[in-house]
């Protein structure tokens, strides 16, 4: 029943249809001419045109892309350093606290992360005068914080199935730890760095709740604009936008998966 019966394939097919049916229908209806999102009346690119004439959407998209690129980059540096520390330094004072701090943002509910960072920024502003007001800077800090956790997990798993003897060989040949890191370790973990950065980028692009807390007036990110549009009622141009995003993300995930598969060490060769 469970090993080679009918049950597992059917469960998998049903499960995958459940995951994909709403997305597929959204993509199809993005080419719908009708204003009523779900009544089909003919093929059209109308909503795509509408989307690219909407300055609010375009500004929000540009802001979101900048924030995502910046926070993914900060998170990449911090997350990689944290991963190196957790995998390579076996024991150090405060290790438990450190590993807890690194992984807790992964599961912390968004509303708590958002509220706590906002309250920190407000308290810091009244005590230190920095950061003045809220906007792109505060959103970047907030996103970099939770993306660090994701980058760390990805890099950590790569570092732990890494052959230590290569690093040791480099050091025996006289390379300093820093040189060894840049010449040996970094190229080997590069695929994990790429996927960690992409993960951080997409997570930042997607975040609505945390950004809503830590943004100021005049700095609305794309999810914030989408959310207010969707809440107000039917807006077919969101379908078009969603289709574009889904297209880009799918491409990214497929490329990242191929990179990871290609570079995976062949364990079978021993």
């Amino acid at each position, binding site marked *: 029943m469970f090993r080679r019966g009918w049950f597992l394939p059917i469960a998998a097919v049903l499960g995958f249809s459940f995951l994909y049916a709403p997305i597929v229908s959204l993509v199809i209806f993005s080419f719908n001419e009708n204003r009523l999102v779900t009544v089909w009346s003919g093929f059209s690119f109308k909503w795509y045109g509408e989307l690219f004439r909407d300055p609010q959407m375009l500004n929000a998209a540009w802001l979101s892309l900048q924030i995502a690129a910046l926070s993914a980059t900060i998170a990449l540096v911090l997350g990689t350093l944290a991963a190196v520390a957790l995998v390579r*330094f076996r024991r150090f004072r405060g290790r438990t606290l450190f590993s807890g701090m690194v992984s807790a*943002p992964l*599961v912390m509910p968004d509303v708590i992360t958002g509220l706590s960072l906002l*309250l920190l920024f407000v308290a810091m502003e009244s005590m230190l005068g920095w950061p003045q007001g809220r906007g792109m800077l505060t959103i970047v800090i907030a996103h970099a914080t939770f993306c660090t956790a994701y980058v760390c997990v990805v890099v950590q798993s790569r570092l732990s199935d890494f052959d230590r003897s290569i690093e040791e060989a480099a050091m025996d040949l006289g390379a300093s730890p820093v040189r060894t890191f840049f010449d040996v370790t970094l190229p080997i973990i590069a695929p994990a760095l790429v996927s960690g950065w992409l993960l951080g980028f997409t997570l930042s692009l997607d975040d609505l709740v945390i950004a809503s807390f830590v943004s100021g007036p005049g700095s609305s990110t794309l999810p914030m604009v989408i959310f207010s549009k969707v*809440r107000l009622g039917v807006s077919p141009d969101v379908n078009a936008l969603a289709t574009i995003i889904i297209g880009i993300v*799918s491409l990214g995930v497929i490329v990242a998966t191929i990179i990871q598969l290609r570079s995976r060490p062949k364990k079978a060769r021993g």
Partner: protein
Amino acid sequence: MTTQHEPTYPPPRRLKPWNAVERGLAKVGITGRMLVLAAPVIWLLVFFLVPLFVVFGISLTTKQFGRPPYSPLLTTEEGTVQLTLHLNNYIRLFTDNLYVAAYLSSIRIAAIATIITLLIGYPMAYAIARAPGPWRNILLMLVILPFFTSLLLRVYALTGFMRGNGVINQFLGLFGIQPIVMMQTDFAVYVGLVYTYLPFMILPLYTNLVKLDASLLEASADLGARPLRTFLSVTLPLSLPGIVAGSMLVFIPAIGEFVIPSLLGGPETLMIGRVLWDEFFSATNWPRAAAVAVAMLVVVVVPIMLLQRAQGAVVEK
């Protein structure tokens, strides 16, 4: 222990600038390890740990008009520093039925959604783990793809699916079935939670199930156990860490969920994430919102610890 690997032969002929810096720092007691740790430690202390204490502090203040909109914790008056702690937010949390009801219903909704996700996700994870090699990566990518696609957009896709004139009702209409009201009900919230968090359940379960030793299953079969019996007494117990990890990965974010109940749920769908949001944005009562956050943190601490233990077990094997 990277610093222990000082080369003995050949000796470094020239002192490179970086080595000089490193030695100089080592003399004042700063090692390379400390430098590696410094950035993430400082960042996470300032932007993750300290904010949690700030939230706790502000939950003990009271709402007031001004900037910031809460009373100061410390006041200086005639040379004495006074610490004023207000417990009214917490008292209100326990005495106002709204909060108690919101907590209980969040826990209930998150728990039921977790169980449904497990029931749907387990067979899928098992099917992927047992799939032939090349298929496995394709199926895994199909699980990861929605995980990367925006949660907001996927929830929005669901609204188009379940709306009164949505795809499901149009399909049912072909058979002459009256439209079913799905949107703005608790049912829609369950569908939304299961739909968005299914990948979170499948991935840790897959990681666990794919490492399952097939010889144990064969041994069980050789000893005469039927497949169902083998599943219940071999596979299921061995996959327990995966089940716990997946369940906690669904349960914890579901507790604090805001987007799903506000786009799919009705006005009577009570969830604590939404209460916190309204307290902050509509009532602009920051101290009350902070108290709600602290109470939510207390609710998720145990699941977070369970998750860490389970993840340790998944990784170790």
